[in-house]
């Protein structure tokens, strides 16, 4: 199906079904119940899931396949956001030209940065990309204020020309982003008994694009080009001894992942038309690294899992507070209850980053393959011994 092997096609179908039914799946608790705070089925969060999913899928094409660890990918996301917002300001509120422009601009920008950074490898590459990203952040924050609107961030105003659209709606407000008239923020609410499900146009646009992006990444993984990228990761020297020049392949992977980041940035701006410099900061680049590693670098589904995992728990953990904890542990004797709440307290609410950092360290130390490897290990436990696959073949050094 679609030129994929059976296994990959199944994976694609599973991902497609999961994303399409996400408004149901992420809303398992009735909206009035105490557990409703664990629902994640509202548009804003679901959009973030898939947008960061796209970002991580793209990052994985570079890091997972070639092993080049870029610490500056947020710069491309930021550039994508800025160009999308400019498109909304100048052309029209239709999201298609905005997304196309953000991909193109991010692609060109990553071509430039990749061309320079890829002259070095290993840690030097990481530091070069870090330097470039931090430089773009500083520029966007200060000098390029006419383009980026500096600290405030780029926003739509009533005075924007919008050549193909209108500067302001009839009632004098800023028009909203749309896809040929379908407003991105329009949401259909389905009430079924105690449950409320929300179907948001913007989410479905992002979800369809993510499924397409996922499909493209499967094709890249399985293509001869993907094989070349893996060759770069496993032994670049040997690859060049066989007469192949690794440079164009790495650069192509870099540009592709930059374009994915630009796409994510463009979508982000399409859902909420503003762009700020903080999206380009290197901690934001660190976040996508976290997502990819946590999910499993070099695997197909890993980055999507990682992005969903981090964004979900970020949302949930930040919501839990001491009152919630007390209600959970109320079955314990009072002294013990207070002790448990006190012990858990640093890790929840504002302490979410602490939990994330610890979790990330654990994954890097014990599970270098991320959640995907964890799943495989668990599955292997339940399998009989005789049908475990033969030990992985390591290339001879």
């Amino acid at each position, binding site marked *: 199906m679609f030129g994929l092997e059976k296994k990959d096609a199944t994976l694609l179908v599973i991902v497609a079904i999961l994303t399409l039914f996400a408004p149901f799946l992420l809303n398992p608790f009735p909206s009035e119940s105490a557990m409703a705070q664990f629902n994640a089925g509202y548009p804003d969060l679901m959009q973030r899931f898939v947008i960061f999913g796209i970002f991580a899928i793209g990052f994985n094409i570079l890091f997972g396949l070639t*092993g080049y*660890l870029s610490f500056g990918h947020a710069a491309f996301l930021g550039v994508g956001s800025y160009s999308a917002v400019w498109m909304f300001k100048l052309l029209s509120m239709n999201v298609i030209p905005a997304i196309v422009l953000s991909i193109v601009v991010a692609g060109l920008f990553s071509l430039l940065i990749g061309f*320079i950074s890829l*002259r070095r490898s290993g840690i030097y590459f990481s*530091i070069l990309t870090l*330097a*470039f990203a931090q430089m773009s952040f*500083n520029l966007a924050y200060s*000098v390029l204020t006419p383009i980026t609107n500096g600290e405030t961030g780029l926003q739509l105003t009533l005075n924007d020309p919008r050549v193909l659209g209108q500067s302001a709606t009839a009632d004098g407000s800023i028009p909203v982003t749309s896809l040929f008239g379908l407003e991105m923020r329009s949401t259909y609410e389905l009430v079924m008994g105690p449950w409320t499900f929300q179907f948001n146009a913007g989410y479905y646009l992002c979800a369809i694009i993510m499924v397409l992006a996922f499909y493209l990444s499967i094709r890249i993984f399985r293509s001869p080009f993907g094989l070349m990228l893996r060759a770069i990761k496993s032994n670049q020297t040997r690859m060049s001894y066989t007469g192949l020049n690794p440079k164009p392949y790495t650069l192509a992977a870099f540009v592709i992942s930059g374009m994915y980041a630009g796409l994510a940035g463009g979508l982000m701006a399409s859902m909420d038309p503003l762009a700020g410099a903080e999206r380009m900061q290197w901690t934001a680049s660190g976040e996508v690294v976290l997502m990819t590693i946590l999910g499993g670098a070099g695997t197909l589904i890993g980055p999507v899992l990682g992005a969903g995992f981090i964004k979900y728990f970020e949302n949930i953990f930040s919501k839990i507070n001491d009152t919630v904890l007390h209600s959970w542990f109320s079955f314990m004797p009072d002294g013990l209850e207070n002790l448990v709440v006190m012990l858990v307290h640093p890790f929840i609410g504002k302490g979410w980053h602490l939990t994330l950092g610890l979790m*990330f360290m654990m994954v890097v130390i014990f599970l270098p393959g991320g959640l995907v490897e964890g799943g495989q290990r668990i599955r292997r436990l339940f399998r009989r011994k005789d049908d475990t696959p033969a030990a992985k073949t390591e290339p001879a050094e």
Partner: protein
Amino acid sequence: MDAIILQILNGLDKGSAYALIALGLTLIFGTLGVVNFAHGALFMIGAFCAVTLSKILSLSYVILDETQTDFLGKPLKVKVPYAESWFGPEIGAAIIDWSVPLAILFSIPVMLVIGFIMERGLIKHFYKRPHADQILVTFGLAIVMQEIIKYFYGANPIPTPAPDVFTGSFDFGVLLGFDPNVIIYPYWRLVYFGFSAIIIGAVFSFLRFTTFGMVVRAGMADRETVGLLGIDIDKRFTLMFGIAAAVAGLAGVMYAPINSPNYHMGMDFLVLSFVVVVVGGMGSLPGAVLAGFLLGTLESFASMNEVKSIFPGIDQIIIYVVAILILLTRPRGLMGRKGVMED
């Protein structure tokens, strides 16, 4: 001319901080071959050692002072620091006033212990793993450290003043024959510069003139051979990690009065210190120091109005531009050895 001298002076204190952090980074990389992304966090913890000590020293209890009354005529509640009641008011006040310099003594053991725990507990297991894994795990550690500090001290910067003696500025221009008040320079920054010069000198002479340092240098050149000679090089490298952590911590302690410490100051310095290390040459100690001062000075030159009017915004990016140029034209850095990490 006076403006140039002023900018050189201004570059010195930031350059000193860069040089100290980069020195530690290079020590760790040169000895253990580990890229430590948590080094900025160590700098930050050093700064918070100063905060902690000044808080501990100014711990106080409340007494009712019968001689003073508040507006209702009741005796006034006065806070008396324990230090003043134990050592007498004058010595006590002096101790509180000098809490930042005292924190140097306090921070050295703390940082050494943190360094040992970090090396034995975590870094040790990452010698054989790829550099990318080392970067990732230390990046995670940096997040954890900074969140722990945030949990205990909050997100706001905590002002930590220098001793009163050092407030005010030194009129440097008069010394060189310029008009008064043209080149003025805060005393504490002079102290900072002198302090970092001492630390750098101490680290260099430790490596150069002691047997221990000689063994470490030999280990940096060829770890295996030193091991074959029957020397437990691992133990010495662990100690060097502790020393590198202590250097970063000391840089942080003394930096606290210059910029009020907050929990993410380490991350801000980390990126720049890495750039400094790369410019100086990975694994080259003199290179790290030289590049630290060079980039610090360059940064303050770029923030001169005359320069900014020609290249707007150059002060924000000059360091990165220099780093990119150096990496592309001379990948081993200013003073890097040939063949070390040159790919």
